């Protein structure tokens, strides 16, 4: 009994007190990192990896992608669009507000990454093992993010709570915005100049930052800043600031700087250069090619490092850095039916099934290209390979991959088609439009084929849509960004997983465009604007493969392309050329805003209504006001700030209160 008492006391002492008051109340995490780890060499290198990983939360995020394309001359909303897309169109079907703006993907990602970059730069001072070249990667990304922010929102804060460009570790709930020239001259230019000096000519690892990509962004920042100083259409800036450079230079100086840095990069390409053909640049499997300076990488090999499931039967379009952008611009081609019976009757068979292929993929029907790009931008579809390398204009039968056993199906004009044959084609021009017969709805009376309101041409087994006959529900897919996988076998693959291809951000080719644009704006040097554009156009004339015919097609139309270049080119020509080169890649809104051509080039557009059988173009007018040239500060920022309503109103960009 005494023993029992003693044991209890002993147990009490051991467990209650012996292990110590302090120990029980102390914390030591063993499955997570605390911010202290960020001061070690491995922590800093992890911080640098995070600089790359953060790109995925901006590039490939489908709603942010929409802000860069919907509302431009490249895209409008499509039949299944929700308000995220209609708001961006500025065509009376929605309204961009602080709460609904999807530029929040950028705002919400960039500052955290800027802070991490500042932390790397500061912490690396005490860790000699971290090299200047590695720190320069952080500098590059800090400037990269600030450049995106200043183009999108106007002036943004340089002080996150610990001083300008300092690593913040305080719970700062206030914010003061700097002006546009401060962001350029204090943050973007110095970081990029340092990065150009310190970064290696060839990447440290696949896809990492180099001198060349730093030069590209420096040149582009100079170019954009020069336009801002010049302000040809008197677009307001915010926070209010005179259009003068703190260093006292003028716009012309910066146009020249842009030209000089871009041509320096062209002359010192390192391991980079142009791909031989536009097709090579965009064909799946060749994504990390020598033309690519920067991309948000993904991989089909490993779901964890890909940041998204790779074999999921049903995956979300966004979240956790997924690349779901291309789903938005993919129309629902799976509705197409071909008939099992020779007279065009019988239960319609889905002849083009959802497949993880570059011209197909998962349909969301959220964004549609208007008619303009097909008739104007890509007017030349024979010499220039870029139309064929941008759009999937022909959908071919793939029904056996989905398990349908029919050897032959009956398609347009009840003509037989076999797997691999065109089922529906988007025609290249209007020459045959008069002969096309369209059904009044989805189908011709008594027929089960078609189902999407496409037309027939005498003698053709494929259904057709003329360029002016595209609608918000039936339109060509964006081939260049389509999914590419190597695990389809003989089946449809994993079309519902987000794209495992890298999202392309910056290409070597853009150096030519930057220099050419600067030259149009008066910069001078060895190469003229026409010379520079001709490099791009010459490459565009080279064919290797025809997507339209799904067959090899070798041709070199370089000379004809060069011959077709006007003797004198202007900004509109540069912008058209940019659209041909970068259609649907998320450049367009920035290009139109930089050059202040948004309203002029995208103020109206034409497209058919969003129902099957609509082939009459409707002309839509957009109301693009000067205030729209910068986006609203996202509501989350304002909600999170400790400030009076007046201070919050003053923080917001004008016109969005």
């Amino acid at each position, binding site marked *: 009994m005494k023993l029992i008492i003693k044991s209890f006391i002993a147990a009490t002492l051991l467990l209650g007190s012996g292990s110590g*008051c302090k120990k029980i109340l102390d914390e030591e995490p063993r499955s997570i990192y605390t911010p202290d780890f960020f001061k070690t060499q491995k922590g800093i290198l992890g911080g640098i990896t995070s600089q790359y990983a953060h790109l995925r939360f901006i590039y490939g995020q489908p709603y942010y992608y929409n802000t860069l394309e919907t509302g431009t001359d490249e895209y409008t909303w499509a039949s299944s669009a*929700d308000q995220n897309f209609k708001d961006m169109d500025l065509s009376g079907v929605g309204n961009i507000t602080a709460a609904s703006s999807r530029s929040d993907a950028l705002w919400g990602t960039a500052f955290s990454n800027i802070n991490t970059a500042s932390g790397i730069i500061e912490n690396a001072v005490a860790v000699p093992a971290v090299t200047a070249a590695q720190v320069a990667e952080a500098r590059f990304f800090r400037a990269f993010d600030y450049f995106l922010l200043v183009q999108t929102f106007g002036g943004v804060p340089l002080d996150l709570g610990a001083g300008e460009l300092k690593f913040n570790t305080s719970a700062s709930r206030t914010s003061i915005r700097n002006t546009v020239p401060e962001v350029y001259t204090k943050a973007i230019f110095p970081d990029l100049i340092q990065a150009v000096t310190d970064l290696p000519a060839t990447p440290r690892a696949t896809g990492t930052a180099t001198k060349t990509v730093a030069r590209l962004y420096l040149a582009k920042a100079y170019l954009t800043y020069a336009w801002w100083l010049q302000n040809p259409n008197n677009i307001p800036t915010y926070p209010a600031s005179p259009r003068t450079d703190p260093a006292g230079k003028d716009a012309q100086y910066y146009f020249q700087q842009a030209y000089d840095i871009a041509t320096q990069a062209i002359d010192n390409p390192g391991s980079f250069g142009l791909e031989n053909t536009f097709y090579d640049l965009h064909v799946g499997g060749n994504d990390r090619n020598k033309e690519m300076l920067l991309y948000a990488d993904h991989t089909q090999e490993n779901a964890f490092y890909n940041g998204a499931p790779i074999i999921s039967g049903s995956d979300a379009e966004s979240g956790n850095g997924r690349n779901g952008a291309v789903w938005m611009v993919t129309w629902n081609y799976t509705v197409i039916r071909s008939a099992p019976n020779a007279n065009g009757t019988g239960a319609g068979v889905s002849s083009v099934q959802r497949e993880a292929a570059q011209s197909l993929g998962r349909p969301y029907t959220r964004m549609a290209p208007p008619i303009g790009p097909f008739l104007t931008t890509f007017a030349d579809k024979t010499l220039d390979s870029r139309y064929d390398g941008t759009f999937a204009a022909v959908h071919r039968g793939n029904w056996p991959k989905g398990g349908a056993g029919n050897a032959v199906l009956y398609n347009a004009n009840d003509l037989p088609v076999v797997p691999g044959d065109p089922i529906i084609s988007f025609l290249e021009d209007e020459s045959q439009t008069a002969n096309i017969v369209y059904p009044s709805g989805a189908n011709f009376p008594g027929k089960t084929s078609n189902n999407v309101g496409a037309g027939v041409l005498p003698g053709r087994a494929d259904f057709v849509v003329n360029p002016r006959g595209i609608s918000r529900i039936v339109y060509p897919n964006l081939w260049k960004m389509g999914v590419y996988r190597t695990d389809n076998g003989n089946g449809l693959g994993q079309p519902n997983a987000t794209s495992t291809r890298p999202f392309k951000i910056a290409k070597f080719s853009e150096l030519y465009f930057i220099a050419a644009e600067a030259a149009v704006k008066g910069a001078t040097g060895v190469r003229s604007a026409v010379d520079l554009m001709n490099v791009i156009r010459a490459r565009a004339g080279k064919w290797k493969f025809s997507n339209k015919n799904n067959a090899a097609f070798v041709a070199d139309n370089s000379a004809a392309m060069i011959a077709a270049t006007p003797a004198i080119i202007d900004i509109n020509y540069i912008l058209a050329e940019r659209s041909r080169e970068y259609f649907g890649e998320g450049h367009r809104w920035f290009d139109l805003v930089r050059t202040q051509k948004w309203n002029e080039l995208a103020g109206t557009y034409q497209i058919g209504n969003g129902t099957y059988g609509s082939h009459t173009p409707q002309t839509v007018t957009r109301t693009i006001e000067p205030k729209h040239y910068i986006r609203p500060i996202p509501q989350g920022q304002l909600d999170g700030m400790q400030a009076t309503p007046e201070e919050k109103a003053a923080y917001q960009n004008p016109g969005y209160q």
Partner: protein
Amino acid sequence: MKQTANLKTLGKMSRVSKKPALLYILLLLQSLLFSQIIFAQNITVKGQVTKEGGLPVQSASVLVKETKAGTTTDENGNFQISMAPNGTLLISALDLVAQEIKVAGRTTINTLLVATSNSLSEVIVVGYGTQRKEAITGSVASIGGDKLRDVPSPNITQALQGRLAGVDISQTSTRPGATMQIRIRGTRSLSADNNPLIVLDGIPFIGSLADINPNDIKSVDVLKDASATAIYGSRGANGVILVTTDKGGRNRKPRISYNSYHGVQNIFAKYPVMDGPQFVAYRKAASSTPRAQQYLNGQDEADSINTDWQDLLYRTGFVTDHNISLSGGTETGNYNFGGGYHLNQGIIPTQLYKRYSFRASIDQQVGKYIRVGFTTNNNYNQSEGNQVGIYGALSNTPISSPYNADGTAKRYIRMAADNSFIFTKDVVETLKDNGQWLNDSRGYATYNAVYGEVQAPFLKGLKYRVNLWLDYIQSNCGAYTGSGVGDALNPNTISSASVDNRQTYHWTVENILSYDKTFGGKHTVNAVALYSTEQNKYNRSNMSATDIPSDALQYYNLGQAVGQLTIDPNNQDYQLWGLMSGMGRVMYSYDSRYMISGTLRSDASSRLAPGNKWHTYPAVSVGWNISKESFMEAIPVINNLKLRAGYGQTSNQAVAVYSTLGRLDTRPYNFGPTNYGVGFYVNQLPNANLGWEYSKTLNVGLDFALLKNRLSGTVEYYDTKTEDILLGLSLPPTSGVSSITSNVGTTQNKGFELSLNGTIINNLNGWTWEMGVNFYTNKNKLTSLASGQTKDEGNWWFVGHNINAIYDYKKIGLWNTGKDSTDGYLNVLEPGGNVGMIKVEYTGGFDANGKPLRAIGTADRQIIDVDPDWQGGFNTRVAYKGFDLGVVGMYRKGGVLFSTIHGSNGYLNLLSGRRNNINVDYWTPDNTDAKYPRPGGILSGDNPKYGSTLSYFDGSFMKIRTITLGYDFNHSLMKNSGVKLRMYVTAQNPFVFFSPFHSESGLDPETNSFGNENASVNLSQNLRRILTVGYNTPSTRNYIVGVNLTF
């Protein structure tokens, strides 16, 4: 400091204990050898204790008042005790009025105890002690184990639902083995756990109520206000549920009890999706809408087919439960051993929940001053088949057939726009039998307590007790999906498997010093001092792999996978936390008339920042037994009247471990296809100021009993204000970090509670009719958020509204007609809209002509409070001879029921013609006063515009939970045998009344999911708190036959 104090106390104890050690041994020997001799001059008194109807009262306590010697009655109510001939017997039993009987030399004393509806003499467990109900000053609601077992269920959460005022129990899942969410007097914390503390046999219990076999339970007491919970400190911030298990009785012959029930489970209601003809009409209506996206029949669809996919999936469930226990006692100790088996095979094929439990408790008096005991609770549980969902069965169109023309089964069907893998009962069972689709979870938990208690020989009433609790919980989950299973697109999708293992190690030591004394006959004092320490360690490991070469391997060796192996750092976890506490409580009562209780507690938590780890808080409560005043003798109709008031603080370490330290988040990345890295960035800042969240509660209550105790009840009012709420505060993105855990915000819960129990007919010609009803309200609101912020749209938090408020448009009808649309400016408010679409309230301005100034937009979203206006439960029991009929029910008035299946989250009310749809009353040109919009009308995403507003229903309902008819065989056949036998039949979930949701859909109006579950597009993780009706396993109606046997 606390530590030193404790050591001193202990030191003193051990010094003191040295001297009387010899004495103890002598006493022990004496009691063992000489007890017969010493008390030889006593007489032996025998007797039987009975209650109304002549039924024997077993386990009644029979005490000799003078010597405290005692025994209990056997199963026939008989007792035998040795005592002085001039002594007094105290006879008491649960729910019966105690009697004091002067023996006066008699050797046979038969006693009839009468029932006390108000059970004043009932002993209530109040935490670190018990109290007679009449002396209680805090807010405590109690229910006996036998009443709980009126609702046969695998765990007592189901049985507790609707039984206690202020205890809101909501269903969060309908899967076998699921437990329910318990909220005592509302939700206080914003992001922290709002679950109450469970105390099992006096010691805080870290397991769940599912770990406790309902058959072992003697009583459940719920501490609701701060003055009652203060003794448990931070652990009891959300209320305390004290579970007391049956421990055998002193001097009781060994007894075996066997309880068992078996039942079948049928679907309460199928989800109300369309049948073939309804669907054909609906798709036609959708396609005839101008500008609608056309959904023409898919490859496998034909208007003539009518398939009921739910019939093809569901099976009849069954439940079986066996429980056996052996208990008994000697003069100085008692024991109870028990084992149980529960199996519930769900109505979804392969879903099952199985539990084996084993429990033992021994309590032994050693000598005069020492008592030691040991309790162990163990269970092994298993659940399977939780991966089987029903979305396919609900969304597959009824006009598609699972069979090919030749009668063979299809692997998948092709509908208008979607392919769907076919999961019928046969398919699911075959996949399981072939080991191709598995989701198994196995848990083992052992909870063990050892205690010792020493009475001070030098001071009567002073006791020292030490409790040591050692627990281990583990769960092992494995999942395997064979190649192509579930993939309607790709039959060759590679297989995948995952394993998830979790362990929890926990210990608690409590040192309790207590003192009980009655001075001068009228002053009663009870004082308790406690010092306790606990620590909890949790570890989770998770891994997954793809491309397992052989189905036979299942998830047992992921190393054999030829695909990728993943150990996601976000799925691994380690948490170690500790809590140290000191507590003192004094309860004083004068003449059972005036009572006061004061508590002071200090807690220190490892989770909080250094410097803020300790928090001390007081609680005090007073009581006045008005009925004991002399002036009340004039009002004989009132048998009891007691006024209680209490005020106290409780606090909550409501924050995840390591929150004060900040954290780096990780971002995996690939540099090229196969070169991988993991990025780090600062996501959460450290907060060195993080302190306790605490609540202040005022509680006023009145207990009463009238009409010879035939009507009794309690009325209570409380007001709880929670301050310094711990919350992950979102920082503006420009700070460069996303959040910091901080003390921000306040909430308030105030409410009114009423419970009434009455005996309407008391043994009139053999008839007895009892009735109990409870009613309560809780007004919950957020009273402030971080620094002046009045709304947090992302989290749906708004000052002045329920924590669970919804933020959405307000549907006020449909745009019914063309005229309505013209007059109401449809074209202005809804550019691109159509007649027949949902009309939501516009909150903007109008021009001089009454034309709205703008289109409907996010500014028109409104805050919708969801909490019910009032709710409660009722039970009634009619007994005649051996028969008894009992009904238990619950009700709820007002509030919002969130049905994700009707709204846009579920993807079951798309109203576009694409997939099968909930069979709703939709608008057509010929049906313009419909509730639901026109199929094929304007969309937002894939759903009708404002489709989310279709989720909200009036949350009112009344539900009969169980009807039980029982027969006690001791009343007739086995009247005088030592065997007790009762049999019963029960119908569970038989009826629902007054529910607009049920009237429309036929479904059970009880929630079945958390907000982030069982929808196609779930609410976000931070809206998980909102309970919904989603497409979980359908609710069931059960028919059960049970037997209780004791011998």
